[in-house]
C-alpha cells in the first residue's frame, strides 16, 4: 500500500516539481499517471521507492516512512523500470543483467537460475539468454530492463513510459501481462502519455498538472471528459472522440475501448432496424 500525504518536492535547482500531492494506492490496484511533460509524474513515482524523499509531507510504503529506510530495502517490494533501458543495462549477457538485482537482494544461486529462466520466458527473451544486451533492438532492450526487475517478483511494479518504442504487438503483450500481474494481486503503476494504451486497459487514472493532481478516478470517466483532459493537454482516445460526436444518434458518451464500442454500435443498429 502506498500512502502519500500532502507532499511537496523541490529539486536542487529550485524547480518545484510537486506542490501538495495526496493519494492512496491500495494493493492490487492498477494506476496510470498521466499529464503533460513536466507535470511531475516521474517525480511523483520516484517517491514510491524512496529514490526521492519529499521536501515536505510524508510517503509511507506498507506503513513505513520512506525517509526511515533505504532505496535498496524499499526496492525489494517496489520494482521500478526506468524509461530508458540504456540507463541500466551494463552486463555482458542478458542473463547476467537479470541476475544483477537478484544477487544484490541476496537470492541463492539455484533460485537465481530459476528466476532468470522464468523472467526470460515471460517476456519472450529466452533465445537471447547469452546475447549481449547492447546488441538487441530498442524494444528488446526495454523488455530486458523489465525482465531484470520482474525477476525478483516485487509486490508493486512501477513502469515509466513502458509503451514508448514498442510495436502494437508488444503493447498488447504488455497489456496482457499487466492484467496477469493484477490477477496475482500485484500493484501496477504506469507513467504514460499513451492515451490509447490507457483506454485499452482502463485503469484508475491520476491526471497531473504543474505538480498537483487535477483529476483522480476511473479511466472511463476521466478519458471521456474533454474539459478535464484539455487542462493537461491530453487528447481524448479516438473511440471517445467518435462517440462524443455521435451522441446525437443516441450513442453513449463514455466509451473508450474497442469491444464496448462494437457492442454499443451493434445495439444501436439493432434498434434502428426495429
Amino acid at each position, binding site marked *: 500500500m502506498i500512502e502519500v500525504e500532502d507532499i511537496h518536492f523541490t529539486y536542487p535547482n529550485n524547480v518545484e516539481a510537486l506542490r501538495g500531492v495526496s493519494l492512496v494506492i491500495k494493493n492490487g490496484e492498477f494506476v496510470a499517471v498521466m499529464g503533460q511533460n513536466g507535470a511531475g509524474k516521474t517525480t511523483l513515482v520516484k517517491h514510491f521507492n524512496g*529514490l526521492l524523499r519529499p521536501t515536505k509531507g510524508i510517503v509511507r510504503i506498507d506503513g513505513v516512512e520512506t525517509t526511515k529506510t533505504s532505496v*535498496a530495502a524499499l526496492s525489494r517490494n517496489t520494482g521500478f523500470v*526506468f524509461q*530508458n533501458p540504456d*540507463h541500466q543495462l*551494463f552486463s555482458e549477457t542478458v542473463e547476467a543483467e537479470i541476475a*544483477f538485482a537478484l544477487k*544484490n*537482494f541476496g537470492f541463492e544461486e539455484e533460485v537465481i537460475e530459476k528466476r532468470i529462466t522464468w523472467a526470460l520466458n515471460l517476456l519472450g527473451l529466452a533465445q537471447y539468454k547469452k546475447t549481449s544486451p547492447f546488441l538487441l533492438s530498442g524494444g528488446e532492450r526495454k523488455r530486458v530492463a523489465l525482465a*531484470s526487475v520482474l525477476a525478483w517478483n516485487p509486490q508493486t511494479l512501477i513502469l515509466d513510459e513502458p509503451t514508448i518504442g514498442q510495436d502494437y504487438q508488444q503493447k498488447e503483450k504488455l497489456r496482457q501481462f499487466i492484467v496477469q500481474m493484477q490477477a496475482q494481486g500485484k500493484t501496477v503503476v504506469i507513467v504514460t502519455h499513451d492515451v490509447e494504451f490507457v483506454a485499452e486497459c482502463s485503469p484508475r487514472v491520476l491526471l497531473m498538472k504543474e505538480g498537483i493532481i487535477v483529476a483522480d478516478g476511473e479511466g472511463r470517466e476521466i478519458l471521456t471528459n474533454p474539459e478535464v483532459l484539455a487542462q493537461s493537454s491530453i487528447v481524448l482516445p479516438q473511440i471517445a472522440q467518435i462517440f462524443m460526436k455521435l451522441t446525437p444518434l443516441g450513442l453513449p458518451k463514455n466509451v473508450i475501448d474497442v469491444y464496448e464500442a462494437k457492442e454499443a454500435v451493434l445495439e444501436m443498429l439493432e434498434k434502428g432496424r426495429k
Partner: protein
Amino acid sequence: MSVFDGLRFRKVYSPIHNLDPRVKFIYVCAVFVAAILFGEILPLIALFLMSIPFVLLAGVQKEWLRSLRGAAFLATFIFLVNIASSFFTSGYVLTAANVETAAAMTLRFVVLVESFSVFFLTTSPDHLGLALEQSRVPYEFAFAFTTAVRFVPVLAEEAQTIMDAQKARGLELEKGGFLKRIRNYIPVLIPLIVSAIRRSLELAEAMESRAWGATKKRTNLYALKLLRGDFALLAINVAVLAVAIYVRLYVPVPTLSKLFWV
C-alpha cells in the same frame, strides 16, 4: 560533482564576463607561469589575492567558493604528501620551513584552480569556441571542445538517472570496503560510457544531415574585437609576468619563517 559546479558557466553579464576570452586566457597563462616560477609562499599569496577582485567584479563568489571547496580534498592531499616527504628526507624532524614549503606547494595548486575557475565561470562556451576559432584553431577542434564543455551538465544529469536506476535494482553504492566501493560504480560507469558514445554517434549523424563541414571557409555572425578593458587586462598580464620574472631573477624572496624567526 562540486568541482564541476565550480567550472560551470551561468549566463550573467559583468565587466569580467564581457572581456575577450583570449585575453582572459592569457591571464590564466600568466598566473600559471608566475605560480610555477615561485616556490615561496609570499608571492603565491600575492597571486592568490590578485584574482579575488576579478571574482568580486564578476559576482561569482558563490560558485568560486564551491570550486575551491571541491579542490579542498586534493589540496589537503598535496599538503600531507609534501609534509611527509620533507619529514622523511630531512631526518625525521618537522621544521617551520618545511611546513611553509608544503603550504606553498598547496597554495600553488589552489592558485591554479582559482584562476581556471574564474576563467570558466566568466566565459560562455560559445565565446570560448569563437575565441578558439579566431585564434586559428581548426573549426573541427574548436567545435569538439565546445561540444564537450556543453555536454558536461547533460552527462552529470544522466549519471544521476543511472545511479537511480541501479539503486532501484538493489545496488548500494556506499556498501563494502574500498575496492568493493570502486567495483560498485561499474554498473553506473558502463551505461554512462555506452550512452555517451551512442549520443555522440547520433550527434554526428544529426550534424551531417545538416551539412556540417560542407564549406571549408566558415564565417561568423559575431567577431571578437579587443576593447579598452581587454587592453587594460593585457597590460596587467604583461606587468604580472614582467614583475614575476624580474623578482625571480634579481630579488631574493624571503620566506615567512626567516622573516619572523630570525
